[in-house]
């Protein structure tokens, strides 16, 4: 398998207070295509910073980050936006769907910015994706009319819209009950089996158990890299 993500000596230093704080203190790591990775750690361990930088939402202070063979550590905001649009999908703890906007339009959104598909193709793909996550009949529902689990499925469908190689999930089950959590994690497992790379941040062991590789962080450093077969 080829490396999809390769980071070398990544540092992120916040100098807002009196003393600079290193949220990431020299992390190196590679993630292969098709891996299902859980990043774990206590709050303040740097796992969210890690995910933000991996997700091109933030830039590191130093170090290198190759995504799909391209250096992305020092890119402009516009370039990062384009990379996120084409290569990355996001699933958030609080779903982040556009309010008062139908599920199908929420799913279409990434391609609205990419403009790869025609209007009809885009709508068809959004419908197919909703079908894929088990919400076939709910395309016209707005987020307020959907349960938390259903909203998260819409968010996953949206993340898949532009066929990204990587999916980033930040505590995807944090706001869900146990039953919905299991359903969402089963969906992730299916997607992983289809070959999509998933990088997920969580602090719950039973959720992390779905992933095949555990990265544990503490004080901005990687302290454990545990691959399970």
């Amino acid at each position, binding site marked *: 398998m080829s490396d999809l993500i390769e980071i070398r000596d990544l540092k992120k230093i916040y100098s807002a207070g009196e003393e600079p704080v290193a949220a990431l203190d020299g992390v190196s790591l590679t993630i292969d295509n098709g891996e299902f990775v859980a990043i774990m750690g206590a709050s303040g361990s740097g796992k969210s910073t890690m995910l*933000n930088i991996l997700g091109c939402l933030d830039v590191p202070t130093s170090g290198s980050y190759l995504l799909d063979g391209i250096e992305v550590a020092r890119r402009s905001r516009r370039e990062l936006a384009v990379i996120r649009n084409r290569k990355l999908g996001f699933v958030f703890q609080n779903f982040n769907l556009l*309010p008062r906007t139908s599920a199908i339009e929420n799913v279409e959104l990434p391609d609205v910015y990419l403009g790869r598909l025609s209007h009809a193709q885009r709508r068809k793909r959004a419908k197919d994706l909703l079908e894929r996550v088990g919400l076939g009949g709910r395309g016209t529902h707005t987020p307020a009319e959907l349960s938390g689990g259903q909203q998260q499925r819409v968010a996953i469908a949206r993340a898949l819209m532009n066929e990204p190689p990587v999916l980033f999930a930040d505590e995807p089950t944090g706001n869900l009950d146990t039953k919905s959590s299991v359903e969402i994690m089963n969906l992730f497992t299916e997607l992983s089996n289809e070959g999509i790379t998933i990088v997920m941040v969580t602090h719950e062991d039973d959720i992390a158990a779905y992933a095949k590789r555990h990265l544990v962080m503490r004080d901005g450093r990687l302290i454990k890299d545990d691959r399970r077969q």
Partner: protein
Amino acid sequence: MNLIMIFKVALLAIARNKARSLLTCLGIIVGIAAVIAVLAIGKGASTMMVKEISSMGNNLVMVFPERGRRDAVSAGMGQGQTMTAGDAMAIKRELSHLVSAVSPTVNVTCQMVYQGKNWQSRVSGVSTDMPAIRNWDVGEGRFFSEDEELTYQRVCVIGTTVKANLFGEDDDPIGRTIRIKGMPFKVVGVLEPKGANGWGQDQDDTVMAPYTTVGRVLLRSTFKAINMMNLSLHSMDDLDEAKREITALLRQRHRLADYQDDDFETRDTTEIMNTIGSVSSLMTILLTAVAAISLLVGGIGIMNIMLVSVTERIKEIGLRMAIGATPVNILGQFILEAIVLSTVGGAIGVAVGVGGAKLIGEIQNWPILIEWSSATGAFLFSSFVGLFFGFYPAYRASKLNPIDCLRYE
């Protein structure tokens, strides 16, 4: 992301908050509507005044004696005693190459009686040239003749208002004798109705009689002082030359030495038109200033709401950025939203202004003139206001950091 999609997103955002969007537009709506309505009424009024003034007469020049003055008290225009009918006749005789018609005019307000009815009106003593000067013909009967003028005949021509007040509907006034200030005058004609002039004065409330008769019978003056002269020029192109020659002739007739001022004044309609023009352009400038201020206020309102909207939708901004909206996409989205708000406000404002002006014109019976160029200008400017005041909030939105937005509580 193409423009149509950005446009759709902006429209959706506005539609989600209908009441607030309308209130935001209100500043623009009121500003544009007020300016368009007032401008339409003002332009209507000044256009009508210009029309009225040009209907005062053909190539009209008026000459007034100097204002009568006793110590510090001015007796008003036309009350001096320096000008006579002889001056008018001299102008007609000697300046015929410039002046086509001249009428000396003496005005006196009198009580007039016919059988049981009486009415107070202005009697103008004029010459037979008057219908040609004022472009005002008799509708029934005839105007008095030059013979009647020369021989001090007690004849008169009455306006329709006077006719209505002295005679019954079925009465034919021609040939009847009315008493003016107790003196019998034979009615020989009725003037065509002319309506109110630009100042609202009823022009039909008048009686015209030979100036000779009026001077002798009604004023009982042996000295033939007149209130004014009305002259018609062959062409307005000769205005300056005509004024110069009239001034020279009158100065000579009045035996004025070089160091003495003119004891008369000439007026022509171009002066009055210029005055109206400058008043109406001053009004336009003032209104433009008011419009600019109200659009400024409306624009600040839009900026305010857009700033609120950016904060309120900060998670949406974060999400859009996370899934691939570039800073330019976000900038465009919010600017377009502001432009749509202000343009819709401008369009509603134009509609309300035009409708309001027409309604007021209908109710008050005022002339209304809608200048579509100023309406279009106001409309386009309102879009510009949206662009200008929408830029700062949109710029702030585009500079936001997606992580901060997504974490914002």
